[in-house]
């Protein structure tokens, strides 16, 4: 299945943050996002209305012909969750680099030191990765890692279990052990709006079981984490994600990233990718 980059759904704003018409970029093209009373809309540079979907607290659009519905996250719909509109962070990097970093756990002890990881607990145990042909998604399961403070609600270190899901080329979902509710998964997402191939607007969003933290505390925890990620993302060379082997050296801990790159190449999603080793 190969489709144009224009035929995917992309996030363009928080529903709670859209009011007066706002100019932004999507895949290098000018678009305008706005709201008239309770109706949200997106127009392209020529003023043509683009299709929209309201989901996960965000407004989504598709500049081409949407081939199917935007993915769903059924786990996020269960009652009692706090839905956290984190806001956005602009990052000077490829949208694909931003997603790949979100899929990576080996950096926790060094980038999110004493929060999501800490030396000497650096080992990444073997986990499972598969490209699910039916759903056209990449999944990593049975990912386990020691974390000093896995979430705002976590006290003391625990071994956290994760599942990672790449639901579309620029959107990933993380399912994570939920400290207050064993047996349930906290849902943390990274929705990336590609402004162009080397610049993106990143919209993290969360659906958590957390009765203790305030909304402001949960937002600020996630913003701290992403600011730390940004210091990495804006300093990788090359800026675009290399899809061909040879330019970068992966290890077993990078199985998710290897599958993500392979899948991007397979579906022909090369916007923000570097194809020939430079």
């Amino acid at each position: 299945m190969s489709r144009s980059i224009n035929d995917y759904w992309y996030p363009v704003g928080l529903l709670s943050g859209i009011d007066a018409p706002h100019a932004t970029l999507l895949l290098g093209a000018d678009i305008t996002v706005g709201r008239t009373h309770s109706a949200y809309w997106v127009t392209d540079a020529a003023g043509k209305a683009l299709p929209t979907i309201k989901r996960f607290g965000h407004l989504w659009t598709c500049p081409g012909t949407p081939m199917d519905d935007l993915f769903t996250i059924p786990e996020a719909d269960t009652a009692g969750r706090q839905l956290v509109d984190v806001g956005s962070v602009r990052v000077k990097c490829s949208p694909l680099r931003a997603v790949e970093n979100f899929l990576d756990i080996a950096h926790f002890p060094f980038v999110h030191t004493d929060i999501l990881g800490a030396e000497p607990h650096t080992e990444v145990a073997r986990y499972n990765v598969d490209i699910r042909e039916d759903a056209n998604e990449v999944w990593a399961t049975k990912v386990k890692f020691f974390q000093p403070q896995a979430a705002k609600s976590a006290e003391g270190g625990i071994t956290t279990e994760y599942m990672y899901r790449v639901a579309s080329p620029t959107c990933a979902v993380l399912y994570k052990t939920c400290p207050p509710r064993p047996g349930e998964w906290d849902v943390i997402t990274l929705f990336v709006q590609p402004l162009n191939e080397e610049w993106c607007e990143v919209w993290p969003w969360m659906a958590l079981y957390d009765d203790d933290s305030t909304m402001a505390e949960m937002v600020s925890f996630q913003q701290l984490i992403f600011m730390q990620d940004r210091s990495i993302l804006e300093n990788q060379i090359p800026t675009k994600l290399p899809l061909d082997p040879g330019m970068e050296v992966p290890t077993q801990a990078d199985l998710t990233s290897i599958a993500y790159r392979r899948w991007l190449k397979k579906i022909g999603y090369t916007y923000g990718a570097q194809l020939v080793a430079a």
Partner: protein
Amino acid sequence: MDWVAVGLCEDVPARTVVPRRVQNTDLAIWCSTAGVFHAWGDRCPHRGMRLSHGFVRGETLSCIYHGWTYDGDGACVSIPAHPDLTPPKSICAAQYACRVQDGTIWVALQPTQAAVPELGARRAIRSLAVQLSAETLATRLKQPFGPVITLGGAHDIALAVQPSTDTDCLLHAFAAPDQDRKAVSLALEHLRDELEAAA
């Protein structure tokens, strides 16, 4: 240019790493705990992260992204995600020749038999950035183009020129040992302003 000055030793103390650029090549210049200087390509082979954001422990430099650790020869000696793995010899950082002379760090991007340029009996004053190409700088100073420009004058100034890009240089300045450091520094800033303003 065979050897290019990339900084004063005092600006890169032990256990630090800094970014530098020579003719558009990004470098990580670092000083080990024992005081040994190294000039490497500013890129971890794993995921392309700049090594100049990394950290020095003992005689090794580690990447800040995943902690991959490289010894003084540039060979990867540790991958923290796999503590029991001996990294393959093929994983290494790009290394460049690096020498210390006259309190200055010198780098050669290409292998060379040439000697490191002499700065005479001068002492290091400071580094300063100039928004001019190395060629334009030499022309405006009415001096031959080269790794070291000797201006002389009351302070007996010499400039080691680091061509960073096609439009920018970093100058490493030296003066007679009896000259007041602050006075020379101010003179250099005036000179820089004049050179940048000259059409």
